[in-house]
């Protein structure tokens, strides 16, 4: 490797590290009408990702009205959290499904 290549590689690596330090993706799986884990913690700017393994459509609907994410069957949907606070959410189609996102500053 030439010094220039090493330098480029280092820059690329740094770039990756700084990006991942800035914003993380937190995954919630929906399996058999259950949000797993039921509670996740995210920082402002992080992405919460719902992976729906069911044959049914679900929603992640914030009880405070801040957001409403529809997750189609066998699909993934994402949300970037913008405000700190504890947000309880449920599925509009199956209100017996409940979860919580704790957003830290």
């Amino acid at each position, binding site marked *: 490797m030439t010094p220039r290549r090493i330098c480029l590689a280092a820059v690329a690596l740094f770039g990756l590290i700084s990006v991942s330090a800035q914003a993380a993706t937190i995954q919630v799986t929906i399996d*058999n*009408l259950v949000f797993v884990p039921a509670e996740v913690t995210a920082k402002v700017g992080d992405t919460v990702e719902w992976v729906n393994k069911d*044959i*049914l*459509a679900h929603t992640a609907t914030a009880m405070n009205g801040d957001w409403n994410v529809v997750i189609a*069957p066998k699909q993934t949907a994402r949300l970037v959290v913008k405000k700190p606070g504890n947000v309880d959410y449920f*599925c*509009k*189609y*199956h*209100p*017996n*499904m409940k979860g919580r996102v704790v957003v830290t500053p």
Partner: protein
Amino acid sequence: MLVRLSAAIAAICLLTGAAYAQGAAKPTDPQIAHIAYTAGQLDIEAAKQALKISKNKEVKAFASDMVRDHTAVNKQALALVKKLKVTPEDNDTSRSLTKQADAKRAELNKLKGRAFDKAYVDNEVAYHKTVDSALESTLIPSANNAELKSLLQTGLKIFQGHEQHAEHVASELK
């Protein structure tokens, strides 16, 4: 009066379920598959009627949700019975559910506007409760095949979710 009557019919259905659970006449897997499929189809038919008659946005959205969910579940149920080489078998419980739903549809067909919306949603609450109880007390405990049992357990969670959803819509109509 009509609400009372459907509650009475629901009670009779529950009793039928209890009798099944105690006696030797426990439903077989082919019968259970037929009952579960029929319960979904009947809710789809009720929803199609609501989509035709209702003008209320929330009621129509609820009805669309019922069509979508029960269609998806019944598709999976059909795939399962095919895989298990089970032929769903008609039975007294399926027949009584169908008869009751036919009567309800005829009754709702005479209504319009708010009266229809209220009657449809109230019946959805009662209907889902009846099916929940049948699943819990009879169908799930009687199922022999593990995959059928697991599908019924998922079905129970869906029906319970729909019941809460229907209750929410009912409270908004008041």
